[in-house]
């Protein structure tokens, strides 16, 4: 092994003795892009118009479609405003692309964070009713079997997020469901009996 060959001062082959003057470097490559006046003013006016548009769509009676739609519209306008600010006021369109990459990456992380979390929150109480009418964890499909043994498969979505009756708990919604009123009563009637043979029908 050559551990003892210590050439602290030799071996400059890879480090040519450059004249390393800190001030001698070329500063002329630093072209300043002077912010133009007129585009910025236009962007500012555009932002004011978009603010007015947000107010109008949110407050005018005839624009009210539903709460979710209006929120979406407001957020789309806000995104457009944010885009204007980022592109012009924050010079993204004049700068190197790497800054845009940073913005896109952060937006990607934000969207990921919120959407995946909301997917979980929105499906927390999305449960499946099995053929016996019990509520069990797993899946999102509801299967009904009628008297003649035909299977009817429907989407069993009992999440406040998707429901027509916002604000109700899952149990309340399930109880309100006309399909279930019968079933709830039936299962209570079965309390007196021993087994869970709901399928038998005749006791």
């Amino acid at each position, binding site marked *: 092994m050559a551990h003892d060959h210590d050439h602290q001062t030799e071996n400059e082959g890879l480090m040519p003795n450059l004249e390393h003057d800190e001030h001698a470097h070329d500063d002329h490559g630093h072209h300043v892009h002077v912010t133009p006046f007129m585009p910025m003013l236009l962007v500012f006016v555009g*932002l004011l118009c978009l603010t007015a548009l947000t107010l109008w769509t949110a407050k005018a009676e005839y624009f009210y479609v539903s709460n979710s739609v209006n929120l979406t519209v407001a957020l789309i306008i806000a995104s457009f405003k944010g885009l204007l600010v980022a592109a012009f006021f924050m010079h993204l369109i004049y700068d190197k692309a790497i800054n845009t990459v940073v913005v896109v990456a952060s937006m990607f992380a934000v969207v990921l964070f919120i959407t995946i979390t909301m997917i979980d929150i929105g499906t927390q109480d999305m449960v499946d009713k099995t053929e016996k009418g019990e509520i069990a964890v797993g899946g999102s499909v509801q299967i009904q079997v009628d008297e003649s043994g035909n299977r009817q498969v429907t989407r069993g979505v009992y999440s406040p997020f998707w429901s027509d009756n916002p604000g109700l708990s899952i149990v309340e919604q399930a109880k309100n469901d006309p399909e279930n009123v019968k079933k709830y009563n039936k299962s209570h009637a079965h309390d007196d009996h021993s087994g869970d043979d709901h399928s038998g029908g005749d006791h």
Partner: protein
Amino acid sequence: MTTAPISSGAELAAKREPHEDYVHQHHWRNAADEAEAAKFGMWLFLATEVLLFSGFFCAYAWGRMTHYGTWREASHAYLDWKIGAVNTVVLLLSSFTIVMAIRELQLARKWRAFVYLGITNLCAIFFLVAKIALEYLPKLQDKKLPGANFWYYNPHGTHDHLFMSVYWISTATHGVHVLIGVLVISWAMYWTARGRYGPKNFMFVENTGLYWHIVDVIWIFLFPMLYLV
């Protein structure tokens, strides 16, 4: 100040603005690299700011999803959209003026830049004063406070306190950012007046502007979410 004519080179040098003799830090190869790196670093910082606020947006989305009914009612019942709208316009104006301040610095017109920065700062202070005087103090008096401290005598829905939690923590965090912005812009004003910033060296003001814009952008999103829909 004497008004004697300039007679020597040393005196001429003394009359130069500091920004004209700007030298980049020693570990950079040239000033362009330094400026680009400063801006790139600032953008990375802004990415962290966006992600910081994404927590509030996520909490808002959660509330909207799980307390769907009360969430929109609370917004209309407790917040005055007119104050929010005025503050939005004020912040947009301040964003525009700080862009103009940078333009003036690039053109070496420091007093114009100073005035633009001053307008920006006045807007920021207006925003804060309006926020505190017209929104926070009346809400404090009515005990429209976050979470467990919500004791408003005439609550609108069952989960109003959670809406007020999201409102308070997101706008207060935003307000703290505005306050930091006021301090940084004041610093920029001071050194602009002293002539530190000019065409060769405006990166501090530029980065201040970037920070200020992101504060603006976050408000652009908070305003419709909290006040309008």
